[in-house]
């Protein structure tokens, strides 16, 4: 009897979810340029930019949530878009307003800057970041709260719908928190003897120096035939058949394995300045097998690799 009641219960839950979702789902929403959220004021946009960088680098989701929440409390649903700072330093002519989507795309179509401005342009909304931070924190109530708000605002991509759906199911089962967040003992993390710069809230490191310290095999060669004028290749010692190619000024990585290529994306494009190639640390750390890291007292601290102390 209990089994039967349970099966009816789950059938009802499924039916409700399906009905609810079928009324809301849209996969590739048509652009509604006339009803975009307002652009965040400068100080709020800066907080959104910082929250975005924290999440993309796998750093403090708590801080990212706090920053986005401050913006939401003060300004509601707002959006912000930006170009990386190095682009302003290197651009030979004025860049379009990153919040003006059509101007940015127009610039790409007209080929004015020689760089993929529409890909270098990054952006987020206050509630989009709150949703992402809630996912990173594994907090199902918050996921449902911000996810529903995103859906109501028209951000109803399938992955958001599914995420909210699963979080709802977890809550129905009495589970409020995904239990992956255990305190890592950061006492055993060690500092890296590596200089870095923080730009647009991303931790950037000089590629050649970083590769030596992280044990990666990197080559940077002058190649005027390549975008950015440099050929950059990275190989992990334990996977010599996989080559990663980076491109200056492009947020892309080409992963070549046994001659087959796959394009992957970077949250921050590598760039060259004064002869130094700067790349985002989070990506290089991932290739080096580093499981956790943070910046503390002006140094990058990294977690020991598994099996090491």
């Amino acid at each position, binding site marked *: 009897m209990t089994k039967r009641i349970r099966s009816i219960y789950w059938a009802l839950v499924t039916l409700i979810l399906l009905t609810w979702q079928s009324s809301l789902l849209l996969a590739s*929403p*048509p*652009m509604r340029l006339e009803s975009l959220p307002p652009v965040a004021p400068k100080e709020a946009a800066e907080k959104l930019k910082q929250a975005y960088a924290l999440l993309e680098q796998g750093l403090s989701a708590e801080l990212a949530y706090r920053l986005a929440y401050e913006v939401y409390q003060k300004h509601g649903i707002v959006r912000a878009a930006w170009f990386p700072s190095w682009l302003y330093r290197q651009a030979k002519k004025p860049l379009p307003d990153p919040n003006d989507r059509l101007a940015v795309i127009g610039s790409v179509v007209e080929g004015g800057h020689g760089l993929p401005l529409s890909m270098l342009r990054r*952006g987020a909304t206050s509630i989009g970041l709150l949703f992402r931070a809630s996912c990173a924190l594994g907090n199902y109530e918050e996921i449902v709260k911000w996810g529903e708000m995103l859906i109501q605002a028209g951000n109803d991509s399938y992955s958001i719908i599914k995420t909210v759906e699963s979080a709802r199911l977890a809550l129905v089962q009495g589970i409020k928190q995904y239990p992956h967040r255990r305190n890592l003992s950061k006492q055993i993390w060690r500092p890296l003897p590596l200089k870095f710069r923080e730009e647009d809230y991303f931790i950037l490191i000089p590629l050649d120096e970083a590769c030596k310290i992280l044990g990666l095999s990197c080559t940077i060669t002058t190649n*005027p035939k390549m975008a950015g004028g440099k050929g950059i290749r990275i190989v992990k010692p334990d996977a010599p058949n996989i080559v990663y190619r980076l491109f200056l000024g492009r947020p892309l990585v080409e992963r070549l394995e046994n001659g087959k290529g796959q*394009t992957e994306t970077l949250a921050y494009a590598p760039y060259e300045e004064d002869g130094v190639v700067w790349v985002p640390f989070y990506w290089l750390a991932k290739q080096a097998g580093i499981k956790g890291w943070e910046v503390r007292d002006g140094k990058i601290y990294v977690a020991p690799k598994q099996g090491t102390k």
Partner: protein
Amino acid sequence: MLEKVKDMFVMNFGAGYYDPINDRWVEAVIPNDAIESQDGFPGQGMPLLWLLNANEGSGYPFRVVNFLWGYAHRRDVYAAIVVPGNVDDVYDKAYGVTYGPIWGNPTAPIIEIDLENIDEGLGSPCNDCNQPANRGTCWLCFGRQQPFQHCGHCQTFLYCCDCDNDHPNDEQQCGECGYNIHNLSQHQVLTWVVGHELGHTVLWHQPDRGHHSGATTYDCLIWEYEDWRVNPPTEFCVQNPGCQTRWKLNP
């Protein structure tokens, strides 16, 4: 293979190209194959596409293809403009957005493709869960269709992966718990996203800009749910053949 007719013009601003000003090659973000390959689109209903050189000519926002019919310029035909971009400041996690119809368009028939969201939608392999940047999505492994098949340690279908550093043995099993159950390639999905968005440009006048819904449309490229990880598309509007005629822009 069904014979297809070229019926639509597309300019790919994500293609690889030679930049004569700087005398260098620029890598492709959206390979031309994802647009024009005869093998690219699924099954019946999608046309082949005329791929035009995106980095020549001018006229933004309208790229008019002065199509000659015989010796007459019968009417203006427009090329859809495919641009790689980032759409999260408007539609969080969307694979792509379409800005308007192919005809009579105040902006332009622009399609913006978000490669990062496509990658995220396909899902990080769960054996990468220990990467902090992936933790936000790791627990989404519930998306697979056979929830318990590979994950011996999972107590509920929500927990197929233990992303914790203290449980390295689980990584082995997590590797089996991927989101991408049909092992779709990025190129395959990219092809579908472009096709889906192109569908919007010709079906813009329809409700929901052409998304098709209902039980008979699961296989359709313009199906509203677009959950290709579970249900790969096999055709374009076989149940709504009138939609297919909208491709026939070639006068």
